[in-house]
């Protein structure tokens, strides 16, 4: 095989619908594989912790339907990573169910459906820790301790290419993956077909966000990547987009702390010596990527834990004197919460829009607040009743805050809603760690079935 061509229609399948015009152009180019990643930790810890999707079922189904029909028509594999935003087991099962339903709906000829899971049992992690295994913290996280593990609701491991390759070796026509590194969704078929890891992982790196590697800016458009034994070429499929040296090199930076390195289970892609060339109007060629195998096989773990039930309230302030003393208003309300619930056992957060609501302590202009403020109050507590009362006190008591020089004595804040609203429970990321594994497939059980509609 001289080259392998893969199209990617969407950088986060389901999060916003795939744009169909460029997808059709991509399919007409007769690629060897259609692949997309469907998850991200960008969506915050709530979906993983509560085992839900942030993407609507209708959009997930829309994109899976486009890809499945094209894949069966061209008789080439379709590969999905990080199913349903989080890649948890329930999300994999949901995507498997959607694929089966679509096969029935369209009376598709029989095909092999492979899938794998990525969830990791908390007790497995605990037993490793008790055997002396270090669960190493990434990016400033301390190494894992059991109390943090206890606070964790759900854990997924980040797969590399291995479970995808296992399923492709077994002849899967459709692969539905649990949590996995974005680039591995694309690297796996390339390595499976004998292309060097260096080119394969770079192919994955450049394709993972679909048209984010093209210009002008436009998400959810299809791009086509071609891998050979010594280069990767990437081409925009949308008529108005191009993959340029600037757009492709620029994409190497996106969402990563360092533009030169990409870490996956099993090694690191080194892009420091990459050379970018414009070889056609819409196509850029990249050479010089290098993959280095890791000395120790470590798998990244993501975990989210529930903090509590949550309510939100909202108030406005227009009086300039009150704006100047907003911290005293908040302190007053916090005091009232403390009188009722004490100092701990709950969280109470005030976000002051118009002063430093978006940037907090990073805000250089926090001493120059706007002429009106909106304050979002969030109360988090073990029970919904407590969260509601806590948030109600923390919101309504701002109305009664007594400031020494205030002219308006009828109410210190304005209510658009004189109520507090129930929000999703609050979660937090508890695990951003790595665990050593003896076998790359250990945490990723694979299954293959024939779908015969």
């Amino acid at each position, binding site marked *: 095989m001289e080259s392998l061509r893969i199209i990617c229609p969407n950088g986060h399948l389901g999060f916003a619908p795939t744009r169909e015009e460029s997808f059709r152009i991509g399919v007409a180019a007769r690629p060897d594989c259609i692949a997309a990643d469907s998850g991200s930790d960008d969506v915050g810890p709530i979906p993983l912790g509560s085992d839900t999707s942030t993407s609507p079922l209708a959009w997930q189904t829309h994109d899976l339907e486009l890809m499945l029909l094209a894949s069966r028509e061209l008789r080439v594999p379709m590969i999905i990573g990080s199913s349903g935003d989080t890649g948890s087991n329930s999300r994999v099962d949901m995507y498997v169910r959607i694929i089966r339903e679509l096969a029935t709906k369209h009376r598709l000829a029989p095909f092999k459906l492979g899938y794998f899971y990525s969830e990791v049992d908390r007790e497995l992690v605990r037993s490793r820790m008790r055997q002396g295994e270090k669960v190493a913290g990434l990016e400033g996280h301390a190494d894992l301790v059991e109390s943090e593990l206890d606070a964790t609701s759900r854990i997924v491991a980040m797969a590399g290419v291995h479970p995808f390759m296992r399923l492709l070796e077994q002849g899967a026509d459709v692969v539905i993956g649990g949590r996995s590194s974005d680039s591995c969704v694309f690297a796996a078929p390339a390595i499976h077909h004998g292309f060097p890891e260096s080119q394969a992982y770079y192919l994955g790196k450049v394709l993972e966000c679909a048209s984010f590697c093209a210009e002008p800016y436009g998400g959810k458009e299809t791009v086509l990547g071609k891998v050979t034994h010594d280069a990767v070429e990437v081409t925009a499929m949308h008529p108005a987009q191009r993959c340029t040296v600037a757009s492709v090199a620029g994409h190497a930076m996106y969402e990563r702390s360092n533009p030169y390195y990409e870490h996956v289970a099993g090694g690191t892609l080194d892009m420091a010596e990459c050379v970018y060339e414009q070889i056609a109007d819409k196509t850029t060629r990249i050479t010089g990527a290098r993959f280095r195998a890791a000395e120790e096989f470590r798998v990244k773990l993501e975990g989210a834990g529930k903090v509590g039930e*949550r309510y939100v309230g909202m108030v406005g302030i227009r009086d300039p004197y009150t704006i100047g003393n907003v911290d005293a208003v908040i302190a007053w309300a916090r005091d009232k919460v403390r009188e009722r619930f004490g100092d701990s056992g709950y*969280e109470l957060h005030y976000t002051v829009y118009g002063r430093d609501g978006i940037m907090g302590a990073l805000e250089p202009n926090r001493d120059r607040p706007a002429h009106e403020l909106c304050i979002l109050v969030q109360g988090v507590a073990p029970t919904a009743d407590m969260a509601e009362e806590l948030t109600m006190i923390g919101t309504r008591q701002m109305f009664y805050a007594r400031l020494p020089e205030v002219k308006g004595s009828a109410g210190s804040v304005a209510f658009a809603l004189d109520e507090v609203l129930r929000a999703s429970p609050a979660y937090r990321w508890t695990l951003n760690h790595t665990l050593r594994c003896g076998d790359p497939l250990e945490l990723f059980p694979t299954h293959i079935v024939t779908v015969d509609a």
Partner: protein
Amino acid sequence: MAKLSTLAKTIRSKNAGVDLITFDVIFTDKQTYERVKRAQVITRESVCALYRIPAARIADFVEFDPGNAIKFTIYRLRPSGSPGDPDIFGAQQYAPLLDIEVP
């Protein structure tokens, strides 16, 4: 003098995983990129001063020649999406960079 917002094609911030926010300042052409680099107005030190953070909050700082870009990454104090985090994607943290004056 010119404001960075008039010289750069892209000025953005975004999560890089759950513990980091990364900032990209991307220029259309090599000349402008080199001008800003030479001016030393975006450095570890200037970023710390602008955002009023200690040097230890900077996780990475790269002048990325292939992309005509200056890129730096900071540690969050709490992971993204923790209760009270007002910018789950880290997407609106770049604004103070817009007004940097470049000689």
